[in-house]
C-alpha cells in the first residue's frame, strides 16, 4: 500500500481532513464514554472493601494512563518536527500539551477524591501520584515555554527539544520516585489496585480508556485546526477555503 504520507504533512491538505476526523472521533468518544460509564456505574459490582467509592477509577485510571501516553506521543511528534522540520508535527505536539496537562490534572484530582474515602486523606505521597504530579509540571513547563516565545517557529523547536529532554527523563523520574517510595514505605500507603479485578471492572476501564483516546484525538485535531488558522492567516489558501465554504453554504 503506497500512501504519500508527506501529503498529509502540509497544513493545507491536513486542514479539511482534521475537521472530518475530529468530528468522527468526537462522536466515537461520546458513545464509548456513555457505554463505559454504564458499565462502570451500574453493571460493575460494588467492591467488597471499598464500596462504591472505587468507581472513580473508571475516570482515574484512564486519565492517568493518558497523561503518560500523551507525553510520549508529544515527544514523538517533537522528534519528527526536529528531524524533518515539518510544521504540522510541531503543531500536533503543541496541540497535545494542554490535553496531556488536563489528563494529568484529572488523574490527580480523581486520585485525591478516591484517596479521601479509601485512606482518609486527599493526598498521600504515593509513587504514582507523585510522578503524575511531576508529569503535570513537565506539561506546564512545555506550555509556559510555548507562550513565552513570540516567534512560532522558534517556539516549535524549543518546545520540541524540551519535550524530548522530558521524555528521556520521564522513565527516570518514574523509577526514582518508585524507589524513593519503597524506601519510605513505612510512612506512605501503596495505591495498587485491588488484586482481583472483576471482568466487568476491567472492561469498564478499557472502554473508558478507548473513550479517552478518542476524545484526545478529536480535541487535538480540532486544536490543530485552530493553530493552522492562527499561523496561516495571511497565506492565501486559508481565505479561499473559508470563502468557498461560505459560498457553498448560501
Amino acid at each position, binding site marked *: 500500500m503506497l500512501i504519500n504520507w508527506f501529503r498529509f504533512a502540509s497544513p493545507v491538505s491536513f486542514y479539511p481532513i482534521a475537521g472530518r476526523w475530529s468530528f468522527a472521533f468526537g462522536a466515537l468518544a461520546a458513545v464509548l464514554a456513555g457505554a463505559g460509564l454504564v458499565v462502570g456505574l451500574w453493571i460493575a459490582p460494588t467492591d467488597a472493601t471499598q464500596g462504591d467509592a472505587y468507581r472513580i477509577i473508571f475516570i482515574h485510571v484512564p486519565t492517568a494512563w493518558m497523561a503518560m501516553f500523551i507525553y510520549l506521543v508529544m515527544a514523538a511528534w517533537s522528534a519528527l518536527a526536529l528531524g524533518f522540520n515539518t510544521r504540522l508535527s510541531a503543531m500536533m505536539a503543541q496541540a497535545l500539551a494542554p490535553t496531556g496537562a488536563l489528563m494529568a490534572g484529572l488523574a490527580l484530582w480523581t486520585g485525591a477524591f478516591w484517596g479521601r474515602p479509601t485512606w482518609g486523606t486527599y493526598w498521600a505521597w504515593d509513587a504514582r501520584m507523585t510522578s503524575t504530579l511531576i508529569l503535570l509540571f513537565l506539561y506546564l513547563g512545555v506550555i509556559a515555554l510555548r507562550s513565552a516565545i*513570540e*516567534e*512560532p517557529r522558534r517556539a516549535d523547536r524549543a518546545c520540541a527539544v524540551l519535550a524530548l529532554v522530558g521524555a528521556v527523563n520521564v522513565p527516570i523520574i518514574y523509577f526514582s520516585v518508585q524507589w524513593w517510595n519503597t524506601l519510605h514505605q513505612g510512612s506512605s500507603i501503596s495505591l495498587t489496585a485491588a488484586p482481583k479485578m472483576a471482568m466487568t471492572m476491567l472492561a469498564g476501564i478499557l472502554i473508558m480508556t478507548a473513550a479517552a483516546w478518542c476524545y484526545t484525538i478529536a480535541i487535538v485535531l480540532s486544536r490543530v485546526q485552530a493553530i493552522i488558522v492562527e*499561523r496561516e*492567516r*495571511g497565506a492565501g489558501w486559508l481565505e479561499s477555503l473559508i470563502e468557498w465554504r461560505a459560498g457553498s453554504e448560501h
Partner: protein
Amino acid sequence: MAVNDVLEARALAARRGFATLFVDVAFSLQSGEALVVTGPNGSGKTTLLRIVAGLTAPASGEVRWRGEPTRPFDPRLRDVVALNGHWPALKDELTAEENLDAWTALTGQRAARDAIAVALDDVALSRQRRLPVRVLSQGQRRRIGLARLALAKRTLWILDEPLTALDNEAAGMLGDLLDVHLARGGVCVAASHQPLPIGAARTQTLALSS
C-alpha cells in the same frame, strides 16, 4: 550563475512572527565585491544578514557559497564567515587585548601577541589595550570590532551597520580594511544607511522596502 560567483542568494524570503519581511530577494557576488543592503528600519536588513551568515533559516529560497547550497550553521560557512553584528560581542570584564586573543583562538587561527598589538595600533587603541572593555566608549568598542576583522582572515564579511558610532577617522579605517579585504578576493555583505567608504565600482546595492 557565473562561474566565479562566490556568494549567491536565490529567491530568499523571510518571515518574522506572522509578518512577511521580504520575498524574492536575490543577489550574487563575485570575488572582491561588496553588497550594501539599504532599507528603512524593520525592512529585514538584519534578518537578511543573519540568513546569509547562516544563523537563521530563510522561509524559502537558498544561499549558495561557491555554488553549493548552504544550511543554517553550515560548517563550510562557519569556516569563512566573520560577522560584526548589532552587538560588539565583547566581554566587559576582559581587556581589549584579551578579547581579541579569545576571538582569534576561537576561530582556530590564534594570532600572536604582536599581531594583536599591531591590529589595535591600526585602529588607534594601543593606549587602551590593557583596559577592561567596560570603560571603553561605544566607538572604541566598534574599533575593536574592526581590529577583529583585520585579524580574523575570513573570506565572507557580514557587517551590520558598520558605520554606527564610528567617527570620520574610524570610518576611514573601515574603508582601508575593506579595500584590503576586497583586493584579496574577499566578499562583504553590509547593511548600511550610508554608502560604504570604498570605491563604488565593486559595490552592489540592494534596497529592501518595508
